[in-house]
């Protein structure tokens, strides 16, 4: 008697304890499904970005190697003349980044390199190409920034862009003794390092060790200097662009891989939870059947 009376009560308790758990399970199942779906979508996006970056990479790398030859040809004269940056004097630092993110740490690399330089020469002026570095450097050294350019590095840089930037810099009408351009140096498809390129002042060119070997008309020196600055900026922009695209490809590759891992994990979790729910339901049905047989 007691056992019979006690059984329904027990069952009720058991059912009550299962039901909230079960509804919980249903909820998490739906939750998991939702997350799984969103991760799958994210994976699709990162994968597409990766493919876009890989197709752009070949072009960017070709443009970079051409611009490298161009820049090196332009700088041969300073190498041969053994031109060195002047000691002291007014320094201008040009940080060459771009507007777009989602490409790993290449912009912060530039920012860090610029900050290191600013520790050495705290009163140096800054010209920033690209929004990313502007945002990062604006926080720490806003007083040094004299000019910045947006819309840089959207596509493969053109010489006209570099020329405009060089023109604007000369229109600042501050006679910089040293101009240092900090850009990402493309070492290989997976390694980039902030590098420095120098554009020299007329004084520095004149004072270089072997410059007397060259014949040049004095008024052409200023032109040579302006042209060399534009060339160097162009080189830095192209190299930075190739680095950015390559970094984006790697970043998106990693993101897609991580998303794949997460999809696997969530798929297993989803299957397990579903199985648990089914088992729970079966238990319920069987217990129900057993109970009604008993009565």
């Amino acid at each position: 008697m007691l056992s019979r009376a006690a059984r329904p009560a027990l069952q009720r308790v058991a059912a009550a304890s299962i039901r909230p758990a079960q509804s919980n399970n249903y909820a998490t199942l739906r939750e998991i499904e939702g997350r799984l779906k969103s991760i799958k979508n994210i994976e699709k996006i990162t994968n597409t970005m990766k493919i876009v970056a890989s197709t752009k990479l070949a072009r960017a790398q070709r443009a970079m190697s051409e611009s490298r030859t161009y820049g090196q040809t332009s700088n041969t004269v300073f190498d041969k003349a053994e031109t060195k940056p002047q000691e002291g004097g007014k320094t201008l630092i040009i940080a060459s980044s771009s507007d777009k993110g989602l490409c790993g740490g290449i912009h912060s690399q530039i920012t860090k390199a610029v900050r290191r330089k600013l520790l050495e020469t705290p009163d140096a002026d800054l010209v920033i190409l690209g929004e990313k570095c502007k945002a990062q450097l604006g926080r720490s050294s806003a007083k040094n920034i004299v000019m910045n350019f947006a819309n840089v590095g959207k596509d493969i840089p053109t010489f006209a862009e570099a020329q405009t930037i060089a023109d604007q810099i000369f229109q600042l009408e501050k006679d910089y003794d040293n101009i240092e351009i900090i850009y990402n140096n493309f070492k290989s498809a997976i390694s980039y390092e902030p590098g420095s390129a120098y554009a020299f002042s007329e004084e520095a060119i004149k004072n270089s060790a072997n410059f007397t070997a060259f014949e040049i008309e004095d008024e052409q020196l200023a032109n040579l200097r302006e042209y060399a600055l534009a060339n160097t900026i162009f080189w830095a922009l192209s190299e930075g662009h190739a680095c950015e695209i390559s970094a984006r490809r790697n970043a998106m590759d990693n993101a897609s891989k991580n998303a794949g891992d997460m999809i696997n994990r969530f798929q297993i979790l989803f299957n397990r939870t579903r199985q648990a729910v089914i088992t729970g339901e079966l238990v319920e049905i069987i217990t129900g059947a057993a109970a009604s047989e008993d009565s």
Partner: protein
Amino acid sequence: MNSFRAASRIALRTKPTRALLAPRRNYAEAAGPADKIRLSLTLPHQSIYKASDVIQVNIPAESGDMGILANHVPSIEQLRPGVIDIIEEGAGSKQFFLSGGFAVVQPDSQLSINAVEAFPLEDFSPEAVRAQLAEAQRIASGSGSEQDIAEAKVEIEVLETLQAALK
């Protein structure tokens, strides 16, 4: 860059472009084929010559047209828009029209030329040049902004040189 353009304008006035086409003494033959100059002719988006050995290069420098051979005195020359003549061994000569730039003769018989644009002379169409020249002249004599007129004048200068070179 303004002095760049102004200088090239003056140079143009003082040196009729016909001189480019006048028969020149060929130093290459006098020097013999033994010595060569290593030429790099690069544009921002393309390198036409990458340290290749050539016999002679004739460049339109600001200070006058020059022929450069091996063991030339090191010098830095600003180029005006004009035709550059590259004489290769065996392959005859190649002509490019350059939009101006810099040529540097390095001490070890290297010649580095940086230009913004360069195209083979035979790729230009005389009709297009004529049409653009007329258009530029119209703008230059019209009542546009000062910048437009200045740009049109530069255009005219380049196109006239080009036209003379094409004839």
